[in-house]
């Protein structure tokens, strides 16, 4: 097992990894930018190294400084968390080349899933159900038009290098296509530095269903149930749950089997998430693989009892998975609310001093956060300040617990998305499990009426 791990991240996920390391008896090195000198992840680690100024390109994404920090502290492995360098194939490659273990998939794994159109092409060729779409990057307007006619409208144009919902465009009619195609290319170029775009069929009211997988270095793969992440605003997830109210045992087995095939097809290693779109008729389509640990991983931990970060570390250290598919038991139901430092109406970031931070407690309540009273939310990074996770014997209990915990949660000094979460959990349709990726936009639209 590793003796010392460097955590190349900040905030709640850095603290999450440090906690797992402490429980495994592994020493930790935190890195931080100069505005994060006093951050909780820095104080929680055994050692810490300042690796640059506030701008993430010069600090948390600064590969030479991150690797130098690993070198001077003697860290044998690096956990990238999510974001920053987590899905940077070059970083993973450099780590491999200098003998520092990257705790995550191989650089090839990251590269394959970095090009979404290509990944879909490869997997479609191996019998994985993929979204009906263009075979790969679209080179011309006529190619786009031809592909769209074949798929049937409405279609959605996506950037090959995109992610997090940016650079997407829905086209309802043929006559809108050329203009949208050009605009999407321009946007893709300016946002991602790569103008490649592709087409997919656009579904109304789909669910976002994803499957957590673990693959050890010997190629053994297990799937750990699905997560329903349909509560999104502009493709940003806000609430996640497991199991999905739309997935029964038969479908769970089937989608788990397909997810396992996806990661086996590319010799994937470590933790990953296979994302699917589920339509109203229970058809599911592969969308993409997130080659990292995800923000919403705790809900899977709550129902399986498996510490996913520890599993990532064990796998990276060369240990085989200690359990098989048939050992995985899903117990109860779990929700996660992402609490962001944002104005809950307009979603504008709201950094500042947190004058009071009192997390909820008690049975079935988990809080993952690097905040405390008198912490400062700096404006330089993402606005997620806490993940509130509940577990219950069934969906009703987990929901009631979330309402109770949201009510108990005190965060003063800044605005947060807590009031929005309260609204979601009080919504009758949500309570019945009747959700789709359009749910939140509709809920918010009610305000303006």
């Amino acid at each position, binding site marked *: 097992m590793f003796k010392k791990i460097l955590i190349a991240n900040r905030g709640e996920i850095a603290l999450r990894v440090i906690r797992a390391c402490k429980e495994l008896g592994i020493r930790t090195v935190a890195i931080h930018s*100069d505005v994060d*000198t006093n951050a909780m992840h820095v104080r929680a680690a055994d050692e810490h190294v*300042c690796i640059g100024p506030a701008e993430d390109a010069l600090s948390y994404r600064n590969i*030479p400084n991150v690797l*130098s*920090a690993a070198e001077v502290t003697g860290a044998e492995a690096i956990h990238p968390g999510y974001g920053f360098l987590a899905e940077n194939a070059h970083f993973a490659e450099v780590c491999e080349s200098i003998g520092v273990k990257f705790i995550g998939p191989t650089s090839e794994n990251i590269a394959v899933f970095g090009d979404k159109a290509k990944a879909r092409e490869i997997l479609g060729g191996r019998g994985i159900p993929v979204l009906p779409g263009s075979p790969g990057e679209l080179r011309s307007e006529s190619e786009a038009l031809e592909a769209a006619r074949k798929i049937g409208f409405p279609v959605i144009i996506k950037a090959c290098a995109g992610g997090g919902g940016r650079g997407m465009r829905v086209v309802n009619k043929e006559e809108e296509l050329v203009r949208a195609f050009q605009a999407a290319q321009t946007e893709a170029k300016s946002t991602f530095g790569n103008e490649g775009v592709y087409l997919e069929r656009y579904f109304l009211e789909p669910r976002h269903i994803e499957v957590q997988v673990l693959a050890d270095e010997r190629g053994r793969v297990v799937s750990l149930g699905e997560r329903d992440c349909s509560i999104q605003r502009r493709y940003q997830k806000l609430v996640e749950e497991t199991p999905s109210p739309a997935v029964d045992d038969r479908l769970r087995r089937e989608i788990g089997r397909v997810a396992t095939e996806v990661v086996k097809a590319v010799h994937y290693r470590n933790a990953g998430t296979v994302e699917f779109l589920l339509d109203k008729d229970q058809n599911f389509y592969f969308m993409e693989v997130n080659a990292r640990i995800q923000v919403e991983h705790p809900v899977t931990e709550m129902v399986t009892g498996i510490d996913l970060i520890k599993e990532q570390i064990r796998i990276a250290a060369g240990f085989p998975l200690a359990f098989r598919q048939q050992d995985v038991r899903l117990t109860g139901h779990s929700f996660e609310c992402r609490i962001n430092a944002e104005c809950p109406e307009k979603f504008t970031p709201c950094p500042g001093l947190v004058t009071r931070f009192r997390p909820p407690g008690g049975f079935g309540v988990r809080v993952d956060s690097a905040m405390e009273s008198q912490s400062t939310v700096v404006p330089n990074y993402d606005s997620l300040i806490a993940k509130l996770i509940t577990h219950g014997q069934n969906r009703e209990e987990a929901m009631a617990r979330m309402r109770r915990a949201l009510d108990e949660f005190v965060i003063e000094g800044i605005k947060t998305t807590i009031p929005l979460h309260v609204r979601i959990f009080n919504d009758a349709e949500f309570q019945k499990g009747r959700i789709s990726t359009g749910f939140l936009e509709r809920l918010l639209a009610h305000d303006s009426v």
Partner: protein
Amino acid sequence: MGVDQHREIQELIDVLKRNNLAELEYERDGFRIYVKREAGPGQAAAARDSVPAGLERHAERLADSGPADTVGKVTITSPIVGTFYRSPSPDADPYVEEGDVVKKGQVLCVVEAMKLMNEIESEVDGRIVKILAESTKPVEFGQPLFLIDPAPAP
């Protein structure tokens, strides 16, 4: 609390009053202050100083370096993370010693990162007052390496 910081706090409070602000937060070179006025006339206010721990560490290092007053001095900090070396190789003489007169652009040390030697140059003409890091030891971003008394402009 130095004279400068004392003056600085007073200036901030004056700014607050003059502009009828409720709160003010200010940060510079690791020195940070937060001042808040009570609403209404006959004001009370709370000030909260929260120097980040990392820069405090640097401040301690400066303090450890003896009674040398840093006012008017220039601090050369490490622009990267790596290992600090005072000489180009183990057998060679140090680039500079305390008391040496240096020119702007003159190499003061190297910081090794990823097997690459990064030469750190003086930002000013002046005299080395204090060497603040120990050779062969790791340094982090922003860590003070040298204290230089700049020469008066010619």
